[in-house]
C-alpha cells in the first residue's frame, strides 16, 4: 500500500501570503494513499528537512510530495534528504506552488485552489513512482583521436599532459594535416611549419601518445567509457621502426611520376617517398599503385640501397584492437574541386590555381622553392587576380551553402605577402563581402588594402579565359557599377572547404550525427559545442564547422578538457530516468531507433519467452549509459513497449487526470 507524505512549505510569506497552506495540508490528508501531511515555514532549511526525514521514518513513507518552490531549485535537496532517511530518492515529487502559483496570483482563494490541484497531481504521480537506481559503468582510461592535423595533435597533447594515454590515428603517412601545407599564418604572418613542427615532434616524443599513422579506424562498438575500436594499419612496405628516414631510396627510385599530394599535385614524387622533410614519423612509404616492384615484381632498387634494411615488399595490413573511454573526431577538411566552376577555367588553364596550391607555390619547400612563378611557363607573374567565395555561399548545387570562414583572411594574407615580396605585381581581389571577425583580423585586411595597396573590388568575376598566354578576367565592380576586363598572369580561386570525406564514414561508425553538409553535429550549438550528442564522442577542429587555426586550437583544447574530465572518473553514474523497452511488447519496427539522437537504441534478435512461447524476435534494447531520457522514442512506439522511467506514460496520464478532475 502507498504511504505518501505531503509537505507544504510556506517559504516564509512567499507562498503563505497567497496560498492557504493549512487548507492544502487538509486537502492533502484526504487524498488516497496520503498518510501524513504537514506545513512548515522553510522546508528546505535543516529543520524542514528533518521534518521530512522524521516523517519518512516514523510513518514508513513510501513516497514524498513536497509542495514548495520549483524542482529546478530544490528537488536535489529533498531527494538527498529522503535518501538519508532510507527512502529511494526517486520516490520524491515536487509540486511547484511558488513560481507557478503563489508568485503569479494575487487572489488567495485562487492561489489556494491551484496549489491544491498541483499537490493532487504530484500525489497522483508519486503513487506511480518506482524506486530507481542510478547505474554505473566503467571508464577505460585511454582516448582515441581520429585525425592527426593540428586539431588532433593539440587535443592529444593536452590529454597526454593530463596523464592519460592517447592514440592518434592518421590516415596519411605523416601527421601534420593541412596546416603542414600552409606557408604563413594570419594575422601574425608567422611561418606555419615553425609553429606546427615542434608540436608534431612533441606528439612523437610524448610517452603517453601513440602515433598510428597510415591507418584508418575500421570498426567501433561500445559506448561512453568503453568503446572498442578496430584500426587498420595499412602496409607501408617499409619497417617503421627500422627506417632512418635518410631518403636515399627516394633519390634512387626509378618511378618518379607520382603526383606529389603534399604539393597539391603541382610536381611529382617517387614511388617510395617521405611526404615532406619534417614528416612525423620520418619514415618512407611505398605507393603500391606506383611501385614497379610491387606491380611487376621487377626492380627492388630501394631494397638494395637501404643500408638499414627497412624495405619489406611482403608487408601486409595490420589490425590493432584497443579499448577507449573517449573518442575525439578531428578529421579536418579539404578544398572542394575547383573544376566544378569552370567559368574560371581551372580545368583548362594552368595559371588558374586554388589558394592551397598558391600556398605551396609560396612555400620555400614547395615546387618552386618559394619563388612566385606561373605554373604554365615558370615565368614571374605581373598581375594576379584573386576571386573569393568560389563555391562558398552557393546554393545552386555546385558549391556549399555555408561561408567557409577562412578565405577572406587567407586571401588578404596572400595578397599582402605577394605585394610585400614582389612590389611589381599588381594584385586585385574580387570580393562579395570581406568577413573578418576575429582579433586583429579586420586590421590585417585593412593593412592589405591600405598599406600594401591591394586592389579590393566589390563584385564577382563572371568569366576567366586564356588568350595569348594571358588570362582575361571579366568581372564587375558593383560600386562603380561597371563591368571590367582585366588581364592577369595568374588567377587564384578561394575555393570553399568541405569536411574530409572520411568524416561521414567515421561519424556513421560512431553514431555521431552529421548535418546536411557532412559537418559533425554538436550536442548543443551554444552550450556543448565540442561534444557530439552521442556520449563520449568529442569534436575537434573543422570536422564540426569551418574554422581557422586559433579557433581550431582552442576547440581542440576544449575537447581535450572534456575528455580529461571524463577519463578522470573511475565510474560513470548514469541518469536513471532513461527509456526502457518491454521486450514482450516490442514489435521490432525500428521507429524508436530512428528518432534517438544518441544512438542509444539498438536492435538484436533474441530468444523471447512470451508467456511460455519461445521465439526469436527482433527487439529494441536501450543502452542506459547513452540514453539521456528525452522520451522521443516513447511517442513513436505504437505498442507502448517503450516507456520512460520517472516520466512514464501512466505517471503523466495520472497528472493529467488529477488536473482535469
Amino acid at each position: 500500500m502507498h504511504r505518501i507524505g505531503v509537505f507544504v512549505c510556506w517559504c516564509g510569506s512567499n507562498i503563505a501570503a497567497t496560498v492557504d497552506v493549512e487548507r492544502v495540508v487538509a486537502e492533502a490528508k484526504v487524498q488516497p494513499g496520503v498518510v501524513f501531511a504537514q506545513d512548515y515555514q522553510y522546508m528546505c532549511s535543516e529543520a524542514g528537512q528533518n521534518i521530512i526525514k522524521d516523517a519518512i521514518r516514523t510513518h514508513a513513507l513510501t513516497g514524498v510530495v513536497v509542495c514548495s518552490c520549483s524542482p529546478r531549485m530544490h528537488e536535489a535537496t529533498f531527494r538527498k534528504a529522503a535518501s538519508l532517511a532510507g527512502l529511494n530518492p526517486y520516490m520524491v515529487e515536487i509540486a511547484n506552488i511558488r513560481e507557478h502559483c503563489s508568485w503569479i496570483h494575487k487572489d488567495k482563494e485562487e492561489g489556494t485552489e491551484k496549489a491544491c490541484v498541483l499537490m493532487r497531481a504530484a500525489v497522483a504521480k508519486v503513487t506511480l513512482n518506482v524506486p530507481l537506481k542510478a547505474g554505473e559503468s566503467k571508464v577505460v582510461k585511454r582516448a582515441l583521436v581520429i585525425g592527426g592535423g593540428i586539431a588532433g595533435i593539440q587535443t592529444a597533447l593536452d590529454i597526454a599532459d593530463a596523464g592519460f594515454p592517447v592514440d592518434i590515428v592518421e590516415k596519411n603517412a605523416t601527421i601534420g594535416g593541412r596546416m603542414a601545407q600552409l606557408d604563413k599564418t594570419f594575422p601574425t604572418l608567422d611561418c606555419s611549419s615553425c609553429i606546427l613542427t615542434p608540436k608534431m615532434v612533441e606528439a612523437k616524443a610524448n610517452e603517453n601518445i601513440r602515433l598510428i599513422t597510415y591507418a584508418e579506424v575500421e570498426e567501433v562498438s561500445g559506448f561512453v567509457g568503453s568503446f572498442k575500436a578496430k584500426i587498420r594499419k595499412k602496409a607501408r612496405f617499409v619497417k617503421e621502426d627500422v627506417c632512418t628516414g635518410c631518403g636515399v631510396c627516394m633519390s634512387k627510385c626509378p618511378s618518379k611520376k607520382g603526383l606529389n599530394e603534399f604539393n597539391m599535385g603541382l610536381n611529382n614524387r617517387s614511388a617510395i617517398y617521405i611526404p615532406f622533410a619534417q614528416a612525423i614519423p620520418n619514415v618512407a612509404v611505398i605507393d603500391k599503385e606506383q611501385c614497379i616492384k610491387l606491380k611487376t615484381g621487377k626492380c627492388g632498387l630501394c631494397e638494395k640501397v637501404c643500408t638499414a634494411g627497412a624495405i619489406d615488399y611482403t608487408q601486409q595490413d595490420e589490425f590493432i584492437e584497443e579499448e577507449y573511454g573517449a573518442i575525439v573526431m578531428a578529421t579536418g577538411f579539404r578544398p572542394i574541386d575547383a573544376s566544378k566552376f569552370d567559368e574560371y577555367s581551372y580545368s583548362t588553364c594552368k595559371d588558374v590555381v586554388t589558394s592551397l596550391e598558391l600556398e605551396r607555390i609560396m612555400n620555400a619547400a614547395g615546387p618552386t622553392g618559394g619563388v612566385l612563378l606561373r605554373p604554365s611557363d615558370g615565368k614571374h607573374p605581373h598581375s594576379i587576380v584573386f576571386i573569393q567565395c568560389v563555391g562558398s555561399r552557393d546554393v545552386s548545387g555546385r558549391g556549399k551553402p555555408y561561408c567557409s570562414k577562412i578565405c577572406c583572411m587567407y586571401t588578404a594574407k596572400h595578397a599582402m605577402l605577394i605585394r610585400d615580396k614582389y612590389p611589381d605585381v599588381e594584385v586585385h581581389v574580387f570580393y562579395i563581402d570581406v568577413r573578418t571577425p576575429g582579433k586583429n583580423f579586420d586590421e590585417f585586411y585593412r593593412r592589405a588594402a591600405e598599406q600594401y595597396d591591394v586592389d579590393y573590388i566589390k563584385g564577382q568575376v563572371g568569366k576567366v579565359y586564356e588568350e595569348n598566354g594571358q588570362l582575361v578576367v571579366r568581372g564587375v565592380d558593383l560600386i562603380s557599377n561597371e563591368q571590367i576586363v582585366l588581364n592577369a598572369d595568374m588567377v587564384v580561386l578561394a575555393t570553399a572547404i568541405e569536411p574530409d570525406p572520411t568524416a561521414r564514414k567515421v561519424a556513421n561508425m560512431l553514431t555521431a550525427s552529421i548535418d546536411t553538409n557532412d559537418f559533425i553535429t554538436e550536442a548543443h550549438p551554444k552550450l556543448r559545442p565540442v561534444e557530439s550528442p552521442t556520449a563520449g564522442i568529442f569534436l575537434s577542429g573543422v570536422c564540426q564547422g569551418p574554422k581557422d587555426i586559433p579557433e581550431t586550437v582552442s576547440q581542440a583544447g576544449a575537447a581535450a578538457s572534456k575528455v580529461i574530465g571524463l577519463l578522470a572518473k573511475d565510474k560513470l553514474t548514469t541518469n536513471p530516468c532513461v527509456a526502457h523497452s518491454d521486450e514482450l511488447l516490442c514489435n521490432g519496427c525500428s521507429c524508436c531507433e530512428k528518432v534517438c539522437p544518441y544512438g542509444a537504441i539498438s536492435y538484436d534478435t533474441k530468444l523471447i519467452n512470451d508467456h511460455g512461447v519461445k521465439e526469436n524476435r527482433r527487439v529494441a534494447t536501450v543502452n542506459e549509459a547513452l540514453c539521456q531520457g528525452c522520451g522521443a522514442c516513447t511517442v513513436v512506439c505504437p505498442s507502448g513497449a517503450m516507456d520512460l522511467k520517472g516520466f512514464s506514460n501512466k505517471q503523466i496520464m495520472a497528472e493529467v487526470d488529477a488536473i482535469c478532475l
Partner: protein
Amino acid sequence: MQRVSEKVIARARELMREGTVNKVAGWKAGEFFYDCAPYVFESEEALKDLVYDRFCAANLSKYMIKNSVAAGAEGGKVLVLLKPCDTYSFNQLLTEHRIARENVYVLGVGCEGMCDIDRIREKGFKGITGVDENADGKTLTVHTLYGDGEVAIDDVLVNKCEFCKGKAHMIFDELISDNEDEGPRGDRFAGVRELEAMSPADRFAFWQSELSKCIRCNACRNACPACSCRKCVFDNDASGIASKANTDSFEEKMFHIIRAFHVAGRCTDCGECTRVCPQGIPLHLFNRKYIKDINEFYGEYAAGAEAGQRGPLINYTLEDIDPAAVSDKGGN
C-alpha cells in the same frame, strides 16, 4: 478479370507443386460466394478452393507477419497473392521489419476493382444467388432468386477501389497482370475536404454520430496491416490507457482517434478498416485526413511505396511548418 484469375490459380498450384513454396496465402470462398476470406492453403489438394474474383478485397499482407516466420521455421516459403494496393502494406511491413522477406514469394496479381455486395444489394437486388462478370469487364450479371439483372461494376466498387491508388505493384517476385497503370482513380481526399468545410460543431456532431455506432468489435484493428502490434496498447495495462479495470473509459471513447494517430505516417490507405467495419463507420476519413495533412505539410508521401522509407513522423526538416500554422489557420 477472369483471365488473370485463371492464370493466378494455375500459377499458385504450379509453385506449390514444384515445391517453390509450401504454403499459399490466398482467398477461399466462405458460406456465400461473396465472402471470400483470407486462407492459408497448405497443400496442392487444398488449393482447389483458392478463388480470385471480384470479392477478394481482403489484404493479405498482414498474414505474412506470422506466416513468413512460420514458413521459415519449417524451411519453406509462403506464397502470397498481393493486389497492387496490398503491396504498399507489404512494403510498409518490410520497412518495420515485420516480415521475413526471404521466406515469402510475392505473386503480384492484377486487379480491376473489388465489388461490395452491400452496394449491389442497394441497387435493388434481393435474393442474390451469384454474380458473374460480363465479357466487357465493365458490368456484372447478378443472378437472383427472381431472375437475372445487370449492374455496372463502377457503381458497386468497395470504397477503397473507388479511390484506387493505381494498378502498379510496388513489390513482387512475379507478376500476373494485364493492367496498364492508369494512376489513381478519383479524388480520395474529397470526403476529407467536405468535412473540413464544415463548422467545428458540425464536425463534432458528424463524428459523434458515426463513432457512436462503434461496438468495439476490433474488426478494424484486426484487419489493419498497420495495426499489427504484438500487443495493442489498449490491451496493455502499463500504457495508462487500457481499460481492463473499467475505472477509465478513456480507451472506450478515444479508441479510433488514438488508433488513427498510431497508424499516421504508416497507413497505406488500404481501406480495410472501413471495408470490414460491420457498422459502416467511414474510418478511412481519419487516415486520409492524416495522409492529406502529411502531403500538404511535408510533401507527398506514400507509405509503402518503397521498403525502407523513413516515415514522416520519424523524420523532420529544419524548415517544417510550425503547429501555429495549424492553430491559426482556422482561427474561429
